[in-house]
């Protein structure tokens, strides 16, 4: 007998977007019951790794404006963002910063006690609000702490969601494994929000936490919900070599330089005006070009570029970049006050995601998505730094409110006993019970290699075609895996094997979307099609699941005020 619980709103994922959604739903009505499900404890989520800050127009009197933030975002997105969504997004942001202030977030301050802001790549005003270089960490803790005051938020920590239940285009709920016991739990819900994060662990060299394995993306996709613009993966310029740990863009926002092996600040060749503070796609490509042309610095872990903070001085580094200093010292034994930090472009963010509109609605009634797993789209082909935590806050709130409203006027739809039993059988009999001769972790390692070789910063049709073939082979091999641990309680072997399955499906969507898009735009750069092609490709990709692989469709980009122009920095 499979256990069943009922909640009006079920939120999957308890990072920034999920926590914000839970609070928004609870504020909407104290009468509705909200389940907050996450595969970790909330404060262990990947949002805690966000470092540099959160963009918001706080000081119009000092020269910033909503129009400027919107324009920076649209241009940064290489014009693939939906402009109505961007305009909404920038207007809603300032309130989110103040709410976090009111809930205790330790924002860094100016001398006059007001919230401080710093420079960030692609932004033409210093509008990035920050809490030292641990912004995501403090935002997550603040929201988690705030969430504790609402009695109608019920947490399900360490529950791993396995499936969505949909009937006639309407959501019915989700299933999840309670990790502690290994029991399957059915959650019946009037509305479901996915806030499950990105797909970054497709790559081995990545800033992402180990847990970011595209779960929500794959579950939604398999259930028939389209994924949008998945070919756009952001490569952050500065991942620490060799671990990939994020060296925040704030390093450059605070005045840091990038240098090649001759000590040159090479960005003057690629973005003479913005230099190191050009958008991430531009800087990452420039760095990779320097490396390809032999101007990287050689090391036992391959060539790298130097991130130089030595001219900033110890006091500024301690005040503004303490985590960067701590991480560089602990992980590579480099003190940025005196030495250069070894960095290389690194997989960092998933611009694409579950297809939603500006109200976070997916094509399935009662099913919403927010945060990195969603694609509204405000980031288009390239996200600006400090717009992701912002997106989680604004659209987490929207999703929470929308789901609560929907729940208030609808009824539960029953998840039948047979459906629950079928899911139990699928996981514990067919998946856990199968025998084979493949080690799932070998498949993961090989997938990482394929993505890094065939779908990295510079892409070509031939390379990608080869890559797609390899992904399909890995999917075949995956059918033959053997999970060593057969027990129920806290079976991380089962969990990680399922995650690898999610990653394979989503990798295929990234790969086929990228191969099909014969242009270069934002983070998707093709050597065989080096120019942006607005005539044919100013459109969003939608990928629909079929057993043979994704079927692609396209929808137009919403342009309100800014016609695409050439993108120079």
């Amino acid at each position, binding site marked *: 007998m499979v256990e069943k619980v009922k909640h009006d709103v079920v939120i999957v994922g308890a990072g920034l977007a999920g926590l914000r959604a839970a609070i928004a739903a609870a504020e909407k009505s104290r009468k509705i019951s909200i389940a907050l499900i996450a595969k970790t404890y909330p404060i262990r989520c990947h949002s805690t790794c966000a470092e540099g800050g959160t963009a918001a127009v706080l000081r119009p009197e000092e020269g910033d404006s909503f129009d400027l933030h919107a324009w920076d975002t649209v241009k940064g997105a290489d014009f693939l963002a939906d402009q109505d969504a961007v305009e909404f997004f920038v207007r809603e942001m300032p309130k989110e910063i103040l709410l976090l202030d009111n809930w205790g977030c330790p924002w860094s301050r100016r001398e006059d006690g*007001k919230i401080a802001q710093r420079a960030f790549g692609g932004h033409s005003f210093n509008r990035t609000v920050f809490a030292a270089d641990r912004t995501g960490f403090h935002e997550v803790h603040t929201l988690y702490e705030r969430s504790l005051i609402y009695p109608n938020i019920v947490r399900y920590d360490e529950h791993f969601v396995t499936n969505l239940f949909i009937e006639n285009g309407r959501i019915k709920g989700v299933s999840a494994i309670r990790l502690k016991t290994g029991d399957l739990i059915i959650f019946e819900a009037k509305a479901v929000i996915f806030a499950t994060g990105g797909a970054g662990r497709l790559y081995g060299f990545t800033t992402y936490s180990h847990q970011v394995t595209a779960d929500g993306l794959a579950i939604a996709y398999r259930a028939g919900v389209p994924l949008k613009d998945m070919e756009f993966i952001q490569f952050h310029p500065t991942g620490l070599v060799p671990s990939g740990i994020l060296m925040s863009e704030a390093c450059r926002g605070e005045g840091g330089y990038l240098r090649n092996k001759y000590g040159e600040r090479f960005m003057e060749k690629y973005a003479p005006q913005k230099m190191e503070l050009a958008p991430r796609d531009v800087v990452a490509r420039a760095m990779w070009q320097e490396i390809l042309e032999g101007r990287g610095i050689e090391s036992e872990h391959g060539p790298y570029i130097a991130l130089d903070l030595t001219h900033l001085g110890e006091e500024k580094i301690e005040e503004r970049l303490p985590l960067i200093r701590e991480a560089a010292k602990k992980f590579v034994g480099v003190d940025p006050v005196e030495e250069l930090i070894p960095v290389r472009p690194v997989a960092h963010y998933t611009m694409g995601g579950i297809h939603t509109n500006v109200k976070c609605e997916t094509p399935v009634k009662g099913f919403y998505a927010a945060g990195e797993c969603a694609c509204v789209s405000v980031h288009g082909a390239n996200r600006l730094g400090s717009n992701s935590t912002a997106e989680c806050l604004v659209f987490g709130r929207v999703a929470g409110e929308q789901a609560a409203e929907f729940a208030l006027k609808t009824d539960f739809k029953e998840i039948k006993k047979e459906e629950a039993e079928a899911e139990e059988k699928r996981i514990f009999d067919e998946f856990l019970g199968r025998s084979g001769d493949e080690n799932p972790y*070998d498949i993961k390692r090989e997938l990482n290699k394929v993505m890094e070789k065939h779908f990295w910063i510079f892409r070509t049709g031939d390379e990608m075609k080869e890559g797609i073939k390899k992904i399909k082979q890995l999917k075949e091999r995956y059918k033959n895996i053997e999970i060593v641990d057969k027990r129920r309680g806290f079976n991380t072997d089962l969990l990680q094997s399922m995650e690898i399955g999610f990653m394979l499906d989503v990798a295929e969507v990234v790969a086929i979307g990228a191969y099909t898009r014969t242009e270069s735009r934002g983070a998707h750069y093709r050597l065989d099609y080096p120019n942006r092609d607005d005539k044919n490709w100013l459109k969003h990709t939608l990928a629909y699941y079929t057993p043979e692989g994704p079927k692609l469709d396209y929808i137009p980009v919403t342009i309100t005020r800014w016609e695409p122009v050439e993108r120079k920095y």
Partner: protein
Amino acid sequence: MEEVIFNIRRFNGINSYWQRFKVPVKRGMTLLEGLYYIKENLDGSLAFRASCRMGICGSCAVRVNGKPMLACETQILNLKAKKLDIEPLDNMRVLKDLIVDFDDFFKKHEAVKPYLIRDDVFYSKPVELLQTPKELKEYYNFTLCIKCGSCYSMCPAASTRGDYLGPATITAAYRFCADSRDKGKNERLEAVSGTNGVWRCHFAAECSEVCPKKIEPAKAVQKMRKSAAGYMIKKIFR
């Protein structure tokens, strides 16, 4: 390439036993990478928690040769040992291998009202609350707790009384009491001055010793204890 023995205390829900694994170690390799090496190549059933691998999510604290530490930010060769005894955190129930039950830990944290308390801020109309850099500095270091459980594992008071709130929780209470924006000090003093609260601390200060974030929970506990004493006296005369 050196070889280091990972001697891991395992628990499968029924039996507890020690198991040895040989791990080839490169310079710079972390304890967490060693655990993943075992899971992915030698024994997939080994269970441990991990996420950010950069010392900020608090998932991966374990005891190595008796001392709690974050697996992700500990370099194996820095431990300068051919054999490492690796065990789950102490003072918490073991669920499986290196995974302990944190539910109770988080419930204690909730109990001290670890959030900003004011009655003049509104959800629909937030306002900017001023706070100078000096006021921020008063409490900022105590916001850095990642709830990894290292301090709790090492705490002698927690080992004698399971209901003791513990250093991390009392630090969270202090963090908000010391925030210039907060007005909820008395509610929190009430929560920490019970028999399971600040009076149980033995002043061993081992919590500060093992804290991977150098937060000095012992200092926070002492400050809360002093405030709690004042609060209790006032309460008697009220």
